């Protein structure tokens, strides 16, 4: 019964007697007590000073001020050095800075700096001294930290060992809200390895050697891997947008368009220093941040104010091939090269290159002829400034020597394309005529491995070159050109695809680059070489009019046209295909398969994927609602030596015989299984039908209904329309003549 006023007990009303003091509220007081501003945030305590007397004191203070002023503003008055009873100083001083930030900087930068030969400064925040220095705050006795017992971790490269022993490749698919990793099964349904809802918030990405799968969340980046797909690393960069790994998976850079803001309560990984920064460089092994950077505003392109500067250059930080350096372009002025793992600016200063527009590291550690010392190379270019010509340069790091440079005139734009072994770099130069009315493109190829780095001019192309791609590990390339610049036209202009290769030359030398063939009137706009070279897909992607795929072989084993006898390529179109609405293409790391997909990120039409083999044979197509992303899992470089690889290539026939047999066995056993299943289905159906029919007949009989419900009705109707029994009914014959004109032709007869 609910208490009502009528039968309230007297005790319930006795609130006056309540003794406030009896209640213990110390826990609440502790929890809610207002933290008054301490006011000591601008103070630091400097320890480790020499012992001085009153006469020496001003001298010491003056000397000390020099040091202290390097990080902030301090006057003589704001240094308080207490003196002991014996007239000597107590070897420490209180210093007041003008702001807490300066005090923090002093702690960071002056702690452990030497004052002179004998004395080293120790600088601490006043508040820290109060917090940790008080008695009882820190335990007197040292207790050794507990060292976690070593636990064997999962093998992160276990994905290389396909349990079916077929050397299949893995890929990740992101569709709807689900991310799944699969084994590629060619024509058959891909075999699922792991499938998780909401695994990522925006996209997934493999690390460059396939060890980790990256998922991106508002709180940061997570890395997953191993056989159990456990979470391996955490990089809490709030509101991270993009991630880039160093080529050897040692480091990572994350970027967010929102500057980091460290809350008062602190951040698990980042410190106050990182406040306001956009980029963070992380060490992958320890998941610790190495250094953070703020975003630079790229200056708007001078002569054309209408042209907006690129939103942000990505990747802003570019890695050298061996993870030793990471560099960032300061557009128009310099390139900052940082040394890893310390992330210090190399030689403490950025490399000044006036006007520098872009640079690219050599994608592999270069091996120049006659150069024995360690080096990494990057290529950069500067536009024309005043009467100075435009320049393309090749710089060696760490020596900062320019090993080759090339002057160019009438340059409107330059693009740098390294070949994957760093054997060549192709500099695509867009030039304008003096009147700036007509455009032409030249391709200048630096032969990096040859003595003196000779430069070869390949061709002058009248049209605009919209795409360029080197054959990986090879020396051939493909370009796509278009007669009109791609602009705001509704229909993309027709394009031409041109193939280039070196001439045959004596010995091991590589001959001059020559034009091989041009295919006109295409819609293609993208080039995808097989990662193993030789095969190339030229396609029209993200194009509403056309979505053609052309599969080429540049080492066709058939007859070679007479005119191309001296060239080191034999071009053959193997197959063409079409995938309506495709937005992306990717080769698998083994160069055996090509996946094309239509992502719902770009449009909502026919989302799904196609899978082709390297010859362009369609193996599989699947339409999947809200299909977003496909990504093949990369593989690390092979461990086999050149000789071992050669040996395998020599015995390829024997290997393939074994594999073909295995494939045939597998397919036939799968076929048997399918037939078995169908036989079972058919039998089940027939049995169900027989039992149903039987039941129906029984039911009818039980209800006393005729076997055929309409037979009687039809008989009655026929009787009604038949005039009279016995009377001969005239049978009516309906004849119909159909005439169809198959073809009509007119001939003039003389």
């Amino acid at each position: 019964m609910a208490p009502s006023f009528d039968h309230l007990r007297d005790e319930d009303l006795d609130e006056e007697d309540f003794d406030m003091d009896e209640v213990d509220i110390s826990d609440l007081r502790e929890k809610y007590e207002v933290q008054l501003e301490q006011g000591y945030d601008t103070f630091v305590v400097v320890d480790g000073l020499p012992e001085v007397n009153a006469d020496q004191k001003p001298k010491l203070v003056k000397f000390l001020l020099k040091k202290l002023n390097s990080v902030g503003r301090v006057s003589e008055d704001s240094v308080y050095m207490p003196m002991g009873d014996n007239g000597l100083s107590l070897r420490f001083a209180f210093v007041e800075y003008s702001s807490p930030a300066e005090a923090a900087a002093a702690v960071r930068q002056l702690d452990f700096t030497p004052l002179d030969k004998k004395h080293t400064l120790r600088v601490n925040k006043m508040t820290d001294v109060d917090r940790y220095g008080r008695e009882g705050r820190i335990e007197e006795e040292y207790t050794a930290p507990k060292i976690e017992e070593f636990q064997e971790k999962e093998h992160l490269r276990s994905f290389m060992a396909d349990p079916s022993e077929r050397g299949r490749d893995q890929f990740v698919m992101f569709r709807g809200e689900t991310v799944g990793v699969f084994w590629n099964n060619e024509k058959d349904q891909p075999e699922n390895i792991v499938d998780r809802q909401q695994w990522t918030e925006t996209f997934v990405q493999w690390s460059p050697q396939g060890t980790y799968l990256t998922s991106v969340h508002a709180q940061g980046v997570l890395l997953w891997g191993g056989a159990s797909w456990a979470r391996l690393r955490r990089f809490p960069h709030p509101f991270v947008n993009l991630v880039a790994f160093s080529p050897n998976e040692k480091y990572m850079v994350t970027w967010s368009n929102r500057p980091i803001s460290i809350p008062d309560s602190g951040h698990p990984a980042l410190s106050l220093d990182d406040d306001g920064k956009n980029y963070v460089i992380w060490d992958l092994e320890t998941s610790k941040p190495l250094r953070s950077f703020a975003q630079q505003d790229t200056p708007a392109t001078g002569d054309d104010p209408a042209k907006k500067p690129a939103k942000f250059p990505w990747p802003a930080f570019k890695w050298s091939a061996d993870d030793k350096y990471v560099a960032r372009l300061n557009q128009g002025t310099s390139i900052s090269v940082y040394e890893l793992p310390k992330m210090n600016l190399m030689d403490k200063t950025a490399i000044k290159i006036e006007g520098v527009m872009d640079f690219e590291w050599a994608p592999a550690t270069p091996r120049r002829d006659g150069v024995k010392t360690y080096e990494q190379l990057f290529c950069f270019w500067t536009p024309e400034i005043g009467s100075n010509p435009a320049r393309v340069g090749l710089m060696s790091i760490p020596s900062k020597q320019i090993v080759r440079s090339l002057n160019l005139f009438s340059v409107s734009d330059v693009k740098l394309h390294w070949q994957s072994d760093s054997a060549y770099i192709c500099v695509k130069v867009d030039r304008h005529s003096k009147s700036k009315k007509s455009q032409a493109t030249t391709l200048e190829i630096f032969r990096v491995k040859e003595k003196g780095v000779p430069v070869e001019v390949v061709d002058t192309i009248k049209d605009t070159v919209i795409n360029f791609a080197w054959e990986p590990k090879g020396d051939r390339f493909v370009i796509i050109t278009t007669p009109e610049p791609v602009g705001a036209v509704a229909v993309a202009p027709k394009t031409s695809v041109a193939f280039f290769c070196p001439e045959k030359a004596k010995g091991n030398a590589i001959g001059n680059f020559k034009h091989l063939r041009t295919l006109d009137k295409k819609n293609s706009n993208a080039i995808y070489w097989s990662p193993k070279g030789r095969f190339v897909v030229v396609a029209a992607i993200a194009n509403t009019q056309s979505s053609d795929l052309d599969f080429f072989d540049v080492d066709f084993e058939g007859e070679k046209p007479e005119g191309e006898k001296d060239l080191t390529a034999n071009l053959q179109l193997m197959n063409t295909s079409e995938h309506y609405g495709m937005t992306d293409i990717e080769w698998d790391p083994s160069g055996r398969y090509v996946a094309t997909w239509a992502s719902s990120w770009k449009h909502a039409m026919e989302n799904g994927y196609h899978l082709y083999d390297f010859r362009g044979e369609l193996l599989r197509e699947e339409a999947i609602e809200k299909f977003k992303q496909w990504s093949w899992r990369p593989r690390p470089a092979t461990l086999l030596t050149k000789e071992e690889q050669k040996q395998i290539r020599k015995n390829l026939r024997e290997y393939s015989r074994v594999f073909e047999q295995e494939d045939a066995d597998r397919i036939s056993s799968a076929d048997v299984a399918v037939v078995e299943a169908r036989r079972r289905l058919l039998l089940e159906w027939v049995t169900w039908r027989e039992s149903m029919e039987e039941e129906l007949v029984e039911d009818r009989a039980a209800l006393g209904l005729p076997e055929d419900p309409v037979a009687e009705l039809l008989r009655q109707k026929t009787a009604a329309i038949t005039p009279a029994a016995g009377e001969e009914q005239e049978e009516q014959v309906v004849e119909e003549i159909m005439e169809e004109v198959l073809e009509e032709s007119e001939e003039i007869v003389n």
Partner: protein
Amino acid sequence: MRPILLAGHERALTQIKYNPDGDLIFSVSKDQQICVWFAHNGERLGTYRGHQGAIWTIDVDPTSTILASGSADNTIRLWDIKTGKCLKTWDFPTAVKRVEFNEDGTKLLGVTEKRMGHLGTIVVLDIEIDVEAEQSDEKVMTIVCDESKATVAGWSYLSKYIIAGHEDGSVSQYDGKTGDLLYNIPIHELNQPITDLQWSQDRTYFITASKDKTSKLISAKDLEVLKSYTADTPLNSAAITPKKDFVILGGGQAAMDVTTTAARQGKFEARFYHKIFEDEIGRVRGHFGPLNTVAADPTGKGYASGGEDGYVRVHAFDKGYYDFLYEVERERQNRLAAASA
């Protein structure tokens, strides 16, 4: 073989029905006309005029004597097939979305729309298959669908059950005599309406089509899902082919989205699936709008499809269709032939 194109309607088709002999095709559309055609050459035999609104549904009695139609003018009308005379009009508070005769043509069910405060219902009328007879005004039975309105309904074998498909994707089984709800089972994805329900020849099982892009073959007795066919587009209609073990599915991007997509995008194709193995066998193109209705010739010689584009396409099957057999089917056929010999 080339299909016969019936271009008699001015607006989107809503339903097509063959008569039991397979020689006549009845088609209704939103243009307020019922058309009847000769199945073998596509010649129009006549029209039935009288409805004042879009016609949603049509059915023909088993003796091809009378015709029932349901319309957005809130009526069910009964017609004399031969003369085109309107025999009877029943009025309802809302539009009629589906009519169907039972197997001996003595009863007719009608599905009424839920609108303007009226709940969706399934009504049953007594019918006399006689053009001279006076039809009864009285509704023998009214089933009220208070949970989710029925979109389609039909009579099972022996008129034992009334099976209804609902807007929420579920299928109900009602007692054919009392109208009691026996089962209601969620068959299709929740809140994806069932758009069609068509019977096998003996009415022991039926096929449903749904906006959830699937079609299911279901047993009438216990509502067990026997087979499931998955398409890549919302489905509007599904039919079971007699003689051969196939099903025909029709659909396409919703009519309102059609103008925004290219024709190849719309997936305006009739799809053939193997009834038992659930594999897609083939597609027939032709319509340039979604397929609203498909109907199989009861004699197994062809099928007709009606589209949002206003056309009816009548296809006769060719030899390849009759010869098509799975290896296991051929095997069984040979075994049966050997046993009977």
